[in-house]
């Protein structure tokens, strides 16, 4: 490939190659300060024109690599950074088997981790980003990696993908140089990436024991509420939030049942972020053990 960059994120080394310089430049800038990867790389992402002439004429980026999904639509070159991020997510979702991969955000305090999962739009990413600026260590906003042997969580502190409303919220909270370019008009709306703070990057090899699982749900008309979630429901929801639970077989079953049996879980409804953060802190004080 003409242009490339290698990134170490938590326990995973990723290589991104591109036919264009732009996406690689943007990635390199966004991931400034990350450690040198431990070679060889676990996964490869390729950003290529979907048709040969698409390198120059109305250039569009198809996301490829070790793993690819049929039916995904190429992105405009100006959204190349998003394509690279999607490509990295894709390799993790389809290829990563060393840990139980949960589609969840996670933050750490006092060596213990809070895990938040829910469908997109539930706010797990925004909440993790805010907690990460307010006394917690951000472990990851997208994927949580559960160790198959000892049940600890590995950090995977990728750049946080801020969408639409949450962009303004974080813009006032962090230094501008940690923010990527504003990407307007992507298929997912406005997107801006945020580099985790230096503490989160420096501690990207430090694991934490899960202490609380939350299923946040956001809705402008939702009354704040906390609900207990039964173990069977937690188990099923987490299997559905995992890309590799089924492929991991018995080891996945062991890791997930252990997590579910030993970790308290709550569903929370909220309608504004301040209110959610207060709920989280309160539950953490009551339940985390």
């Amino acid at each position, binding site marked *: 490939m003409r242009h490339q960059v290698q990134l170490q994120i938590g326990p995973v080394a990723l290589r991104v190659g591109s036919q264009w310089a732009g996406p690689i430049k943007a990635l390199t800038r966004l991931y400034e300060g990350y450690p040198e990867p431990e070679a060889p790389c676990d996964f490869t992402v390729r950003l290529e024109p979907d048709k040969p002439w698409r390198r120059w004429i109305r250039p569009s980026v198809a996301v490829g690599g070790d793993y690819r999904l049929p039916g995904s639509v190429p992105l405009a070159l100006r959204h190349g950074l998003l394509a690279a991020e999607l490509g990295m997510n894709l390799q993790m979702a389809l290829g990563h088997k060393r840990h139980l991969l949960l589609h969840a955000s996670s933050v750490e305090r006092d060596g213990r981790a809070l895990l938040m999962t829910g469908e997109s739009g539930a706010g797990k990413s925004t909440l993790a980003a805010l907690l990460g600026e307010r006394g917690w260590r951000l472990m990851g906003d997208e994927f949580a990696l559960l160790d198959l042997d000892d049940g600890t969580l590995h950090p995977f502190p990728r750049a946080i993908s801020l969408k639409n409303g949450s962009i303004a919220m974080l813009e006032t909270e962090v230094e501008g140089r940690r923010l990527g370019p504003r990407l307007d008009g992507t298929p997912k709306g406005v997107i801006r990436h945020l580099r985790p703070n230096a503490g989160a990057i420096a501690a990207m090899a430090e694991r934490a024991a899960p202490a609380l699982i939350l299923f946040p749900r956001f809705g402008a008309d939702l009354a704040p509420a906390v609900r207990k979630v*039964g*173990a069977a429901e937690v188990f099923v929801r987490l299997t559905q939030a995992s890309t590799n*639970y*089924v492929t991991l*077989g*018995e080891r996945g*079953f*062991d890791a997930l*049942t252990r997590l579910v*049996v030993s970790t308290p879980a709550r569903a929370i409804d909220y309608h504004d972020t301040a209110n959610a953060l207060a709920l989280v802190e309160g539950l953490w004080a009551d339940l985390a053990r």
Partner: protein
Amino acid sequence: MAGPRFTADPPDMMRTVELDGLTALFHLPSGTTHILAPPAPQILAALADGPATAPTILARIRRAFDVEGPRRSGGQRRSGALAVLETRIAELEAAGLVSRL
């Protein structure tokens, strides 16, 4: 007619964890996880004593439980209980946890 004889893999081919009243079961030969509600785990436990027809499975379950038939049928007619049990066995068969000899 006694009907078909059913069999299940030996208990050491299944791992189970209780999750508030339900059972998470990992089946080693298939590598799949199932969530079971009663009486599915009890049927598997009954088959751990060896292959059996549906009436025998019911008899084995009755050694440990008072069996309550279909909820809406009112009484506890024996044939009703057997018919429901056969439906439950068929579900386990479709999931590959029970097979016919």
